[in-house]
């Protein structure tokens, strides 16, 4: 193992690492810092890499540890985070003005519902205990196997299976209760509301009907619908997608709102 191989492997998985870390931290700045620190740490510790896992798994382990260090003192978000942040956005003098400016000027400013589905999962999954959130993301979005996740998070296979099952179960229940895309009684319509704001000329019903989640809402069970939701995340890079700048602006807004909310309600 040498620095050239590390540099190549790091470059090959850098986009995935960034996408994973921003989905955990919800902060672009923290993500940039962690990615940079991951590379520095990997370089300085390269002689300790024994090849017991792949280099990619090892890099994800370093990045996960840095993210855990950053987040360990921070409170987890509530399940209704999107309600709280929606109220804050509606009362903000700047949020919609900034978002509209991005939508009209940025090449990565086009609002799409599937991008919001991924964004929404990022926010809501922060209601899981951190280890569960990391496990669900690593398994369902980044395709790591249980043994690899156990190595990344320094846990036993049994604990990873527990985190995965529990995290999935909780998310399935939250989305089944909240998401109007899969449940007519769902209390959250935020993705279609925002689509109406950013794409007022679109026929809302037609747009919704094209979504796989909506198409399958009545024929698939909750587990399968969750898998479809995870496929949406897998297919999107939060830094490179067509709505990246718009969604990252929204994510930054939500993180700031939640930090204030959690401080006020501590």
């Amino acid at each position, binding site marked *: 193992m040498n620095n050239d191989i590390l540099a190549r492997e790091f470059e090959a998985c850098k986009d995935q690492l960034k996408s994973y870390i921003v989905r955990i931290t919800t902060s672009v700045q923290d993500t940039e810092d962690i990615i940079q620190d991951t590379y520095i740490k990997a370089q300085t510790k390269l002689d300790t890499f024994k090849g017991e896992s792949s280099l990619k798994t090892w890099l994800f382990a370093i990045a996960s540890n840095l993210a855990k260090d950053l987040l360990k003192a921070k409170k987890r978000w509530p399940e209704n985070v999107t309600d709280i942040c929606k109220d804050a956005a509606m009362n903000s003098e700047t949020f919609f003005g900034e978002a509209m400016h991005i939508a009209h000027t940025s090449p990565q400013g086009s609002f799409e519902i599937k991008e919001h589905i991924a964004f929404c999962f990022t926010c809501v999954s922060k209601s899981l205990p951190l280890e569960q959130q990391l496990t669900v993301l690593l398994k369902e979005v980044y395709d790591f196997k*249980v043994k690899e996740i156990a190595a990344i998070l320094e846990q036993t296979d*049994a604990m990873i299976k527990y985190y995965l*099952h529990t995290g999935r*179960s*909780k998310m399935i229940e939250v989305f089944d209760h909240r998401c109007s895309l899969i449940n007519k009684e769902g209390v959250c319509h935020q993705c279609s509301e925002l689509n109406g704001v950013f794409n007022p000329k679109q026929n809302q019903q037609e747009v919704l009907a094209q979504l796989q989640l909506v198409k399958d809402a009545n024929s698939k069970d909750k587990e399968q619908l969750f898998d479809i939701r995870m496929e949406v995340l897998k297919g999107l890079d939060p830094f490179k997608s067509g709505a990246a700048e718009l969604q990252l602006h929204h994510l930054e807004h939500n993180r700031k709102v939640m930090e204030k909310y959690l401080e006020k309600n501590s």
Partner: protein
Amino acid sequence: MMTTTNAQNGKATTIKKTFSRQTKVSIDINADAAIVWTLLTNASDFSRWNSTVVSIDGEIKEGEKIKLVSTLAPERTFKIKVKEMQPEKMMHWGDGKGDRYFTIEQNKNGGVTFIMDEKMGGLMFPMYAKYIPPFDENFEQYAKDLKKEAEIIANTK
């Protein structure tokens, strides 16, 4: 600690005496002790998988007090002390009226045998015994729920 008996395939037994009542259930589970232990010690997650528990407030840690609401008497909150914990092996809860032991033993099938054993008693026991509902059905459901959840987790790919 109470002595354990062979697995009874999820069937509870109760021994009634004048000054005490003891209910026990045991069940074989095809899962690691770590999974069973984690399910038994994660208070906030309990009501998701265990249909006999309405809620548990507090942390299941040695020396801590927890507040348990059971479907046996949902109008009551039981304040229980976690008296002893031996990770992945044994846990002992108790209050003034009784003691409950949870035991996890490796079995010859490569899984574990879970045993839940509760004994209530004392000199005043005959005075309130008639107000305490039978535990058998509740214990059997508890064991069944634990087995189901632990085996689903163990089979996660």
